[in-house]
């Protein structure tokens, strides 16, 4: 008997238990699902409370890190998941769209004095356009080559911002306006700030919670949209492209158009988050948009189980939360973070909560996560299928 067996068995059990949960979910009637959805949203709203925070982040302000990095990463990961997880296009420069959104907010807000809500809409449009602009020439490339070009694009955006004095150069932009506030909100006769101790629509400097609620609202809208796309003709086209692009084309899927669409949608989500983030943080500068952020979000998507929305959100949550949780350990926390990532690669190479379809793809050694361009055998594939390609 070789020593790998207990490991394989453990992995198998993990996989089995998640299958059971998935099957139960698939057979749950609609009204029960709605109860779960509503419970999740209420949970998200209650999350910033002190009692949860004292365990979740003893060393930093829990409500603050719920907005950034946790909430921000989750939303960015949802956006990147459309590109990487659904369409199978490996994008290493996702931070670029986040930057475009951030700068859209900063410039339109400070120079033109536009309202946050207008900028949010316009910013999403600008980001979708920049996604199309990046996609149109580069989406003719595949796998590794696409990854390299997107990586370059991310750097170009950051370095251009740093070297363009008109938009602040390396100092960035200060004095970004907050979203318009409605103070002392009274709804159904309840005065929120008296009853709950939070004024949910007062966007100031001191209280991060209103921004967090705004983020939750944005996330709910984005999740609904993404989920609907996934289940539609568009989603099926993306899955086909991810699994075999040539085959998708000869099935009559306009692959190029759908890849551009995935880029545009991913970029819009990243951009919307950029707008929201810039509106909270008052000042932005090019160093907020390092390559490391792209890499971290990608790690979150892959680790969580790319292609599966709950998995991706869980992955982003962990990637953002773990280093904060162990802040007390100072420099050792990155060591622990690394160890957790390695452990995941050993025990769950397909991600924490992979979709079943994705698992089958990975087994076959195709599709999956864009395969990073290389057709590598999956953990349990026998290798010969790959050799025959």
């Amino acid at each position: 008997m070789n020593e790998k067996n207990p490991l394989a068995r453990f992995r198998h059990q993990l996989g089995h238990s998640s299958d059971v949960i998935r099957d139960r979910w698939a057979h749950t009637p609609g009204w029960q699902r709605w109860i779960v959805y509503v419970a999740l949203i209420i949970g998200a709203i209650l999350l910033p409370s002190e009692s949860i925070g004292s365990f979740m982040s003893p060393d930093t302000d829990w409500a603050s890190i719920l907005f950034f990095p946790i909430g921000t990463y989750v939303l960015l990961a949802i956006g990147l998941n459309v590109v990487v997880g659904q369409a199978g296009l490996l994008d290493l420069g996702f931070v670029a769209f986040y930057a475009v959104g951030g700068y859209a907010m900063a410039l339109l807000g400070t120079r033109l004095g536009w309202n946050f809500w207008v900028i949010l809409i316009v910013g999403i449009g600008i980001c979708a356009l920049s996604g199309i602009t990046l996609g149109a020439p580069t989406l003719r490339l595949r796998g590794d080559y696409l990854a390299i070009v997107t990586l370059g694009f991310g750097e170009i955006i950051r370095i251009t911002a740093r070297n363009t004095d008109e938009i602040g150069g390396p100092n960035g932009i200060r004095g970004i306006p907050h979203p318009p506030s409605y103070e002392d909100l009274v709804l159904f006769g309840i005065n929120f700030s008296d009853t709950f101790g939070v004024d949910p629509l007062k966007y100031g400097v001191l209280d991060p919670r209103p921004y967090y609620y705004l983020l939750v609202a944005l996330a709910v809208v984005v999740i609904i949209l993404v989920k609907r796309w996934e289940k539609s003709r568009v989603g099926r086209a993306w899955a086909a492209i991810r699994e075999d692009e040539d085959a998708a084309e000869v099935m009559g899927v306009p692959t190029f158009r759908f890849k551009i669409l995935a880029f545009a949608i991913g970029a819009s989500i990243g951009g919307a988050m950029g707008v929201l983030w810039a509106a909270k943080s008052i000042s932005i500068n090019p160093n907020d948009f390092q390559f490391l952020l792209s890499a971290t979000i990608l790690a979150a998507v892959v680790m969580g189980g790319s292609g599966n929305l709950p998995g991706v959100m869980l992955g982003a949550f962990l990637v953002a939360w773990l280093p904060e949780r162990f802040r007390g350990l100072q420099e050792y926390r990155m060591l622990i973070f690394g160890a957790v990532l390695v452990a995941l690669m050993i025990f769950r190479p397909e991600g924490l909560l992979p979709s079943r379809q994705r698992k089958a793809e990975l087994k076959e050694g195709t599709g999956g996560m864009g395969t990073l361009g290389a057709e590598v055998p999956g953990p349990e594939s026998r290798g010969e299928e790959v050799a025959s390609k």
Partner: protein
Amino acid sequence: MLLEVKDIHVHYGKIAALKGISVEVNEGEIVTLIGANGAGKTTTLKTISGLRGLTSGRILFDGKDISKMPGHKRVMAGLGQAPEGRGIFPGMTVHDNLLMGAYARSGNFDKELAEAYELFPRLAERRNQAAGTMSGGEQQMLAIGRALMAKPKVLLLDEPSMGLAPLLVQQIFSIIEEINRRGTTVLLVEQNAQQALSLAHRAYVLETGSVVKSAPAAELLDDPDVRAAYLGGGLGHEAPGERA
């Protein structure tokens, strides 16, 4: 003439893969392209289905020039392909794979689904299984069944016998014959020249990007050069049992 390839040249970078290939396919025929590795068979097929751009030459389908038409539109025009290396969607179930085959169509596909399951009863047994977990032969059946879902006028098949056991090859080829009998024209690319020639009406022999011979398939089966090159009989030797 249903499909006419006129003197096409295709380049990978600077390297010429096809140096002027002309192929004609008439309605109702089975035409096969045979040749060794690197002769340009697969490239020819990919160019016809629109996965490769051509440098010069023309492709006419149903009298229309489709040389510049993108691949996904050619499917709607009536070209169906089962790509090389099977090219099924491994993460989707067999059923979903078949439905993907009808992606370009709207309306009701129940009839085509039933036909695919009737031609390949094996697929019906496995309809809810992830396609990637099936054997090579079953995947090949799926690839052909899926291509038929688009109701193509011409079915392009790229090496359906690749990597299959001899018994399965027999089975796949007899199904191709059946598909043809039901009215679909077939353009078949094969390395297994023996099988392909016994099935096809006409054949083209490709060598390093050019057509070196074209003739009725039965004639090529007896052609000494072809026998020597592709059928494993030495020059001047009669391999036993090959003359019908």
